[in-house]
């Protein structure tokens, strides 16, 4: 453990020399929707393949953030954006209702505590131990999410936000919520508080053979 003294002789405790070095990293611009979109534009300019279009089927954003505090997982603010530039902690391949091959990926984040917090570490361990290929889904939760998605789609069509024929993928949310619940249970079973953990789920869909995507 290291003490770091500032100009006023106040002492800040840093756990290790590794953390001390990491703490000197210059700040980078905030990672938000706009930055991710701009980076994506640069990637598309510089990697001139025929484009597959990133689909945004899940909740209309392709990103889901689930807070593990409380008695059940809760959907976080919709402005959270899963950083595609970092490796997921777990991922599964699946086919969405439009027949596209998709990667549904999950990442554990700390909210208000260090990434090295024991609960966060356990959460990642639980996630990595989940067999996403054989994950069992509660039929009642699945049906509930499908019904809600259908109603939401009708509402969006009536508002002219999406065209009729656009497909939602409510099962992706069901899988995500199931994963988040399992992680929360695992953290609690370890005697730790999952209240500072966010599980983000992101999905990327589309043919991966370089063929042009015609959009929704």
């Amino acid at each position: 453990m290291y003490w770091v003294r500032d100009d006023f002789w106040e002492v800040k405790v840093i756990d290790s020399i590794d953390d001390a070095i990491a703490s000197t990293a210059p700040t980078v611009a905030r990672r938000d929707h706009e930055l991710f979109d701009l980076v994506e534009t640069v990637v598309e300019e510089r990697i001139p393949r025929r484009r597959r279009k990133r689909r945004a089927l899940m909740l209309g954003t392709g990103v889901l953030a689930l807070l593990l505090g409380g008695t059940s997982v809760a959907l976080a603010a919709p402005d959270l954006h899963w950083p595609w530039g970092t490796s997921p902690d777990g991922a599964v391949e699946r086919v969405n209702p439009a027949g596209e091959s998709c990667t549904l990926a999950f990442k554990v984040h700390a909210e208000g505590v260090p990434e090295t917090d024991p609960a966060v570490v356990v959460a990642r361990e639980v996630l990595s131990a989940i067999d996403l290929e054989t994950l069992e889904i509660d039929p009642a939760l699945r049906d509930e999410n499908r019904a809600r998605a259908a109603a939401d789609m009708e509402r969006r069509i009536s508002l002219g936000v999406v065209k009729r024929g656009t497909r939602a993928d409510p099962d992706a949310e069901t899988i995500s919520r199931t994963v988040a619940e399992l992680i929360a249970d695992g953290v609690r079973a370890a005697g730790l508080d999952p209240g500072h953990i966010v599980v983000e789920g992101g999905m990327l869909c589309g043919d991966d053979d370089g063929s042009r995507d015609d959009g929704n």
Partner: protein
Amino acid sequence: MTAAEMTGTDRERGARLERAVRANAVDLLAYLERRIDTPADAADALGETLLQVWRRRAKMPADDEALRPWLFAFARNTLLNARKASRRRTAGTTALRGYLAAAHPAVVDHAESLAVREAVAALGPDLRELVLLVHWEGLSISDAAVVLDIPASTARSRYAVAKARLRDELDEAPQAGQKPGGISRA
């Protein structure tokens, strides 16, 4: 070669490269932001990095795990040849420049960070960059060796030397009357 002229092998290679780039682009940008005095210039450097990556895709490693340090090596080379970047500005990099210029936080160097930073700077360029790749970018020592184009064994020994020097530098117990701004182990 245009996308339409690609062979099947080119297409597979391009798809694999695209996945790797998309998975690492934001981290590459962070690497560049942290090392360029004017953060907005990181946009041009990212564009140049990806341009070079695309041109050299035939030589990308077969092992997926080796792709990340391979990409970082291009970013590092871009910094070493920084003048090229601004000459190849595109609409995308220009827009990203504008974002970075507006959104980048003002640099606040806290005294405690300065003390550690000075110790790291005193390591000299070879050791310093190795340490920063590991602790700022989160690369393994082996991956950092790829970025720096040195053998992994060399990187490991250099890293051990660097950590020992940092411990020596930062391990001084606080003394009465000592000038503030240091770091001490509890």
